[in-house]
């Protein structure tokens, strides 16, 4: 039977009489945990921001009609040349329509799939922005502004304006900020656009679009689906692209394959489209954890060291405790509990310091062209990190305390007493 109040009171006395050592040992844990929390919150915040930069704007699956050569050329269909080696020079892509055939039923079908969060229609077309006699080439994409804002956080990339404004306006345009600068336009002005097929349409600027990628911002603008369809002189089932957002990004590859097979369309999943981006995320996470664990291990060795010294100093105490009837286990618990108290106090302080530092970083201004809505350094203050940090503080102090305390358990009091 272990008498915990007694053991704790002894370790309390030991810790308080050696308050300097105790403080230093606790500070080791505190700094370890504090910097772990800071680092992890900051790094994952940055990671999330960089992920968002790509993930938010990119559909998990992008469905469209690819212009490409037919896989089976006419010569392949001719039986007479079946067993011969055919060489076809100067292959041309097959003429096909840009619009997705039966797009609206396909969208309905995709929206019913459990894995799909939302499937949104888009109309993409090339246009010219007309400024007097100058024509600037560009892209115009017709969208459902509210859905885009909901699923792809369109709102984060709109400056001076909103997706609602676009939704409410029949001939509004969300102009790329690069074009707006070139043409010295501001919100409320009108801009003339001309599709390739000819004709000039005057659209009212309801806001600016800034993706953070300058080349894109210099050509890309958005309007309502209906507006583009009217400019192109097409009916409301003219859809060129479908953006699919999934609940789980892992479903992207199988679902895109299925869409390609089922509808005879091109479906590109996000992993294929952004293979290099995922590698970056993985490596950044790896570095974050490697550094954090190193910090915590260093703190652990500090505790190990101090506890080891403490036990050497307390050799006489150990002998006398054992001689007066404390068992080896009692003595081990005395030193174990000291380690755990150091870990507990240091861990709590570390959490506070980590919280303070991250809160501080969260207020430091951070302006970037890439993300117009970001004002300060991104911080991901996930409670899980605090739980992990505190758990690690306890586990590492337990391990650091275990070995020295095990030694104290085995110390033979006779040897100590006779040595005098």
């Amino acid at each position: 039977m272990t008498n915990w109040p007694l053991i704790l009171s002894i370790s309390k006395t030991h810790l308080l009489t050696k308050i300097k050592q105790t403080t230093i040992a606790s500070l080791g844990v505190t700094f370890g945990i504090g910097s772990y929390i800071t680092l992890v919150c900051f790094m994952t915040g940055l990671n999330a921001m960089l992920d968002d930069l790509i993930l938010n704007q990119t559909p998990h699956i992008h469905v469209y009609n690819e212009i490409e050569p037919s896989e089976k050329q006419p010569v392949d269909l001719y039986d007479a040349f079946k067993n011969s080696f055919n060489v076809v020079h100067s292959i041309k892509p097959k003429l096909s329509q840009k619009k997705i055939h039966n797009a609206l039923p396909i969208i309905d079908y995709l929206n019913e799939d459990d894995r799909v969060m939302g499937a949104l229609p888009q109309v993409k077309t090339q246009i010219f922005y007309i400024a007097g006699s100058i024509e600037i080439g560009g892209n115009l994409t017709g969208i459902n502004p509210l859905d885009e804002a909901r699923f792809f956080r369109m709102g984060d990339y709109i400056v001076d304006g909103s997706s609602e404004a676009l939704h409410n306006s029949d001939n509004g345009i969300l102009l790329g900020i690069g074009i707006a600068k070139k043409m010295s336009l501001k919100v409320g002005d009108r801009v003339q656009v001309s599709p390739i097929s000819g004709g000039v349409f005057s659209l009212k600027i309801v806001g600016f679009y800034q993706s953070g990628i300058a080349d894109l911002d210099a050509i890309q603008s958005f309007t309502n689906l209906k507006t583009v369809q009217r400019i192109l002189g097409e009916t409301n089932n003219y859809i060129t692209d479908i953006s699919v957002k999934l609940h789980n990004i892992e479903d992207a590859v199988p679902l895109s394959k299925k869409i390609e097979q089922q509808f005879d369309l091109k479906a590109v999943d996000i992993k294929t489209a952004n293979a290099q981006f995922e590698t970056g995320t993985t490596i950044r996470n790896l570095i974050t954890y490697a550094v954090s664990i190193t910090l915590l291990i260093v703190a652990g060795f500090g505790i190990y060291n101090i506890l080891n010294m403490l036990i050497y100093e307390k050799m006489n105490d150990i002998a006398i405790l054992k001689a007066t009837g404390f068992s080896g286990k009692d003595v081990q618990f005395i030193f174990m509990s000291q380690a755990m108290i150091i870990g507990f106090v240091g861990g709590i302080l570390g959490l506070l310091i980590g919280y303070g530092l991250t809160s501080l970083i969260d207020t430091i201004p951070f302006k970037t062209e890439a993300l117009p809505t970001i004002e300060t350094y991104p911080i991901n203050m996930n409670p899980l990190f605090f739980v992990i940090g505190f758990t690690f503080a306890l586990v590492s102090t337990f391990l650091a305390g275990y070995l020295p305390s095990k030694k104290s358990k085995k110390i033979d009091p006779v040897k100590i007493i006779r040595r005098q």
Partner: protein
Amino acid sequence: MSTVLEARHINKYFKKPILFHVLRDINFSVNKGEFVSIMGKSGCGKSTLLYVLSTMDTDYEGGLYLNDKLITNQSRDHLSAIRNKHIGFVFQFHYLLSDFTVLENVMLPAKKLAEKSYQEIEHDAMEKLKMLKIEHLAKKKAFRISGGEKQRVAIARALINNPAVIMGDEPTGNLDSHNSENVFQIFKTLSEDEGLSLLVVTHDEDFAKQTNRILTMEDGRIIS
């Protein structure tokens, strides 16, 4: 008269650096209320014998009986409990926990035993300190008091659980003659008035002469 402590055919070897037969067939017993001293030259094995009797050293052959119960080959935890309840120690070097107050030092074994409430233990400890005339030191840290005082605190600590036997390893070896005499008188009183059994290893012939019985050791044997 009942036997408190009995040793039967105790043999012990030191295996390092070379095999050495340090205790050779030790047989003796201590009765209740008896004051026994063990004398002998340095290296004759008297301290070794004391540590075997104290149950701290378990590496021996033979049988050891406390209150007529065999305690050889018990588990270490059980032996700790036996030491706690039945055996009190006084060493040559005073061996107090220097970070604790005198009162806490005295109370510690009783807290470990946990048979009484904190208030009772504190009361008992103060009684023991009063008996040894050092109650005024109760609140002082153990490293702040003099050698003779420390030894009396150690005696108070040995007494706190009302043990069956008190063992001393040269308890007066490090004290001046005045304090030695003082400690001896305390032992004597405990033996005569409280009926406590005492087993003391000593070099001090004057001290030994005044005890009930002297065991003389030579080359690992008890010769008288």
